[in-house]
């Protein structure tokens, strides 16, 4: 159990570091993928709403502490979206490859919608339509494209760890 938690923590730190470095060279039209959200969504789809919520809050909090402003914005939005997607996964056939893709696109748009709401509440001025078209939509598509890759890799690692735990 502790091995899985440790590995998850390390993977989240690595994903955060990659998002702040490598993925800036791989941005599409200025849009960055949201690895923290993808992580949480993949866990939510595979293990249900509670796991999604826990991983989402942890991932969001890491991102919040790194950004240093509006602490809790990412934890709240990623946690909520992962929880909701976790509820949905109980009613769908999650092995279908379209599921992670669609969940990532919908989840990204939902998270950005929540983020925009809170930023507007706290006085940040922006043009909703422009931000949606130029930032949220390309980022959602990017997340959707990355999702199947992350989905398979993440759970291959998890499967390996489970075997390791049972052998130990």
């Amino acid at each position, binding site marked *: 159990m502790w091995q899985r938690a440790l590995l998850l923590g390390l993977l989240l730190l690595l994903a955060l*570091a990659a998002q702040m470095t490598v993925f800036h060279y791989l941005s599409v039209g200025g849009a960055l993928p949201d690895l923290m959200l993808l992580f949480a969504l993949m866990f939510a789809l595979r293990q249900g709403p509670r796991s999604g919520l826990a991983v989402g809050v942890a991932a969001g909090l890491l991102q919040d*502490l790194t950004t240093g*402003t509006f602490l809790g914005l990412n934890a709240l939005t990623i946690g909520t979206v992962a929880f909701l997607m976790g509820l949905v996964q109980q009613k769908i056939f999650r092995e279908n490859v379209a599921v992670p893709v669609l969940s990532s696109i919908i989840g990204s748009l939902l998270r950005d919608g929540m983020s925009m709401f809170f930023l507007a509440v706290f006085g940040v001025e922006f043009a909703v339509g422009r931000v949606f078209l*130029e930032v*949220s939509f390309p980022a959602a598509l990017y997340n959707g494209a990355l999702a199947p890759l992350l989905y398979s890799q993440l759970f291959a690692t998890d499967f390996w760890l489970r075997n390791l735990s049972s052998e130990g």
Partner: protein
Amino acid sequence: MSFLRRHKQTISAALVVAVTIAVMGLTARERERITYLEVVLLEIVAPLQGALEFVTSSVVSVSDSIAEVRTLREENRRLEEEVARLSHLLDDLEELRRENERLRDLLGFASRYPYDTLAAEVIARSPGNWFSILTIDKGSRNGVVVDLPVVTAGGLVGRIVRVTPRTSTVMLITDPKSGVGAMIRRSRDAGVATGQLGSDPLLLLKMFSTKADVSPGDTVVTSGLSQIFPEGLKIGTVVEVFQGEFGLVTQATVRPAVDFDRLEEVLVILAWPRGEEAR
């Protein structure tokens, strides 16, 4: 009592959400000090980011070089001509500098002091699409403190907003929370340049006067009014001028002078002459 028991989970969740929103509101403004947790996290992630940034930029650099091999010969010939031309230009500039110094002496003005700067490497960028920040590899151990301006040879990059012993966070001028005292170099009309959310990092320049003399192509520089940035640092170039809401303010979009996607090294201005000192 039974109501509380029945809805324990819902009430707990609502409380957590309320507290989170309150914390969000409290941290929406800039803080003088950061938490110990943030220091620990940033210090742990920094070496990892440094390594990843080094590997990635090396790979990008090598691939760029390979792609440019075909044009290298042509480029080399062109550069040789350019070097010859620039050498002449340098000679001319040296003459002008000497003449300028003599004129300044005549007018009784002292030459401006050079800024006291610290070179730093960019080790990480924004973790999301909402805020524009950079992490650099110099911190309080190197004399960096909050609010110091950060520049490149091209112009203004931003200012320090958080400092740990070995790293600092720079809020870029394109961040939606950033506001820089600015003026049009040609007309000296002043305003505030703020960042905007969006894929194209254009700044919004709100002029203080409705009759401000500003046109596309004008160079925008720091006004020095905020005391955070020295006067005269290049911010960018005016792209478009328009009237704001109800025609009460003149506004302009400004393309920053710095290419924020390609930043690798920056200079932190540790000290500069202010007020009377600057004259």
